[in-house]
């Protein structure tokens, strides 16, 4: 296969993530792919994504490509922090941990306004979704330590993440 190269753009850019939306796998039917971009999301009737508001500058998604024995493996990781241990925080821990069994699909909007799909690919569709790698809650020790939950979700497949140009299904 011939290489296509890459044209650098000179515009400013921003690191980090603005918003995270998650949906449990049974609640989404499929995504529509047009020219390597997902343009629409088909949801089971009445189901939508839910937004999780994290502390500013605590969310990151990453993908790591590895080639082993000429086989490609791409690991996607989504980290975010919810502040202050609380009953509401406990409920989030519980629902995400429970949803991990069937898995979740995320739409992550970065600070450049691009929305990325994690946990759904054309090769595997919904078969290799995000699942909980860890959820670490803690109070810290000192008055100035953070009381927080650190969520890490992960999926592994063989396609780089694609962007999403549709409207995120939320109410």
């Amino acid at each position: 296969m011939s290489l296509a190269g890459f044209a650098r753009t000179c515009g400013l850019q921003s690191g980090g993530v603005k918003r995270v939306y998650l949906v449990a796998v049974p609640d989404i039917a499929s995504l529509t792919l047009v020219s390597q971009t997902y343009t629409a999301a088909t949801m089971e009737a009445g189901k939508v994504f839910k937004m999780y508001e994290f502390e500013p500058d605590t969310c990151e998604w990453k993908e790591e490509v590895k080639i082993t024995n000429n086989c490609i493996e791409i690991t996607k990781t989504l980290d975010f922090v919810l502040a202050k241990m609380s009953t509401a925080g406990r409920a989030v821990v519980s629902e995400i941990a429970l949803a991990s069994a069937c898995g979740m699909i995320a739409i992550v909007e970065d600070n450049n306004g691009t929305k990325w799909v994690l946990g759904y690919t054309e090769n595997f569709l919904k078969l290799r979704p995000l699942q909980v790698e860890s959820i670490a809650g803690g109070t810290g020790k000192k008055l100035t330590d953070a009381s927080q939950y650190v969520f890490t979700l992960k999926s592994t497949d063989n396609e780089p993440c694609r962007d999403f140009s549709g409207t995120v299904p939320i109410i």
Partner: protein
Amino acid sequence: MAKQAKTGNSYRIKPGYEGKDVWTPLPDYPRPDGAKFSLTSDLDQVDLAFLAEVVMYEGVEQVS
């Protein structure tokens, strides 16, 4: 009289997609649900044409 697609083509929802909700980019014409299309018989031909021709949505097919 039911709204018709500008192209004159006629579309229908494919079997297996009825009852689902599809969320697309915001269409360039006003509609009460904005970017959310509930795939029921309530969708008119303008909506179905938008899904088929603009979004290239796989759950809508042209009626020959």
